[in-house]
């Protein structure tokens, strides 16, 4: 709320792009000189993994914008259904996404008709 200097969005995008490219550049420069299975790399991949997991948890549990109008139960239900479909139908992403979305939208529709 009280940010003193707000960066223009395009500046933030370019800064984030540059910050991402740093890892790519290091990969080019260090290729063949570092072991990609060293503990340091394991730590880096753990942090990246946990950060993305945190991001998805935040979007699913504490969403903003459009998603904030939907029920937490419905979002979690969609996750469970999509994951179950993914496992049952041999790791098919499309079947997973469609099942999750159909259940989610059906639940949202039901709530719209009979608001609880």
């Amino acid at each position, binding site marked *: 709320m009280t940010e003193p200097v707000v960066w223009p969005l395009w500046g933030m*995008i370019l800064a984030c792009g540059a910050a991402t490219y740093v*890892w790519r550049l290091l990969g*080019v420069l260090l290729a063949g000189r570092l072991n990609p299975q060293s503990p340091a790399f394991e730590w880096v991949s753990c942090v*990246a*993994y946990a950060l993305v997991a*945190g991001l998805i948890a935040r979007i699913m549990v504490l969403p903003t914008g459009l998603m904030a109008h939907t029920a937490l139960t419905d979002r979690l239900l969609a996750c469970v259904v999509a994951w179950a479909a993914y496992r049952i139908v041999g790791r098919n992403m499309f079947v997973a996404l469609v099942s999750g979305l159909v259940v989610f939208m059906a639940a949202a529709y039901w709530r719209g008709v009979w608001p609880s």
Partner: protein
Amino acid sequence: MRALDQQALKLGIIEALGVPAAVLGAGFLGYGSLVADAGYSVWMMLMATFAIWALPGQLVLLEMAGGGAALTATVFAVSLSAARFLPMTLTLMVLMRERSGGRRLWHFLVAAQLVSMTTWAVAMQRFSDPHPKTATEHALRTDIAARWYYFVGFSTLCISAAAICGVIGVLLIGALPPLARFGLALLTPLYFFVTLVGEARSRMQVLALLGGAISALVLQTLSSNWSLLGAGLIGGTIAWWCRKPATPKPTDPPQSDAQQLDPQNSDHPQSSQHTKAAP
């Protein structure tokens, strides 16, 4: 450009046209709709796609910029979410580099920007395909120079498909009825949820997922600016710390169990040659 390079470029484009472009497209369709829902323009969406070219990082940026987070916190969080690019680029460049140094450095700098989870996984597999069907596929196993063309063709098509689907997502969110809009907004988070939870195999990955998710939600109540960064560092470090069983003896039963469940587990020194990242 040799005839073989042209064939490699063409093969890359054709192979991207199927499942890879469609899966990426689904993710970016949802991303475009989230960008539009947050009130940003289609140009910002395209700029982020081309400049960052990593959907998790783009989502982190969207979440944090929307929440008014500071530049430092945002850049750090986006950068850490992309840290996996270092080992990925590292392993891929080894496969595309000629010892004689025939290829110029800028070729690799361009290829590095094109690396994404999808393009990396497909290229790693293609360059070591044990059952090549066509002459071009066979050539890619031995002709290192042609690999760059394959990778550029494949990745360029993937980026184009992602950008087009992102634009469609931006346009759709305003045109669809409310119920379908909810579905579109859920698409990308759901996609990542299924990828992360469905593909988590090793104990380390499961711990990182749980640690990251729990710390993000707890930290969110303290400081929304730093919650993602904190979640990555705390959850990731805990997972890394616990990645080996408490007593790593060769006869330790939990360890042999873990190895049995997960043949690709790189935690175990003896199994390190079998990880999928090894060429």
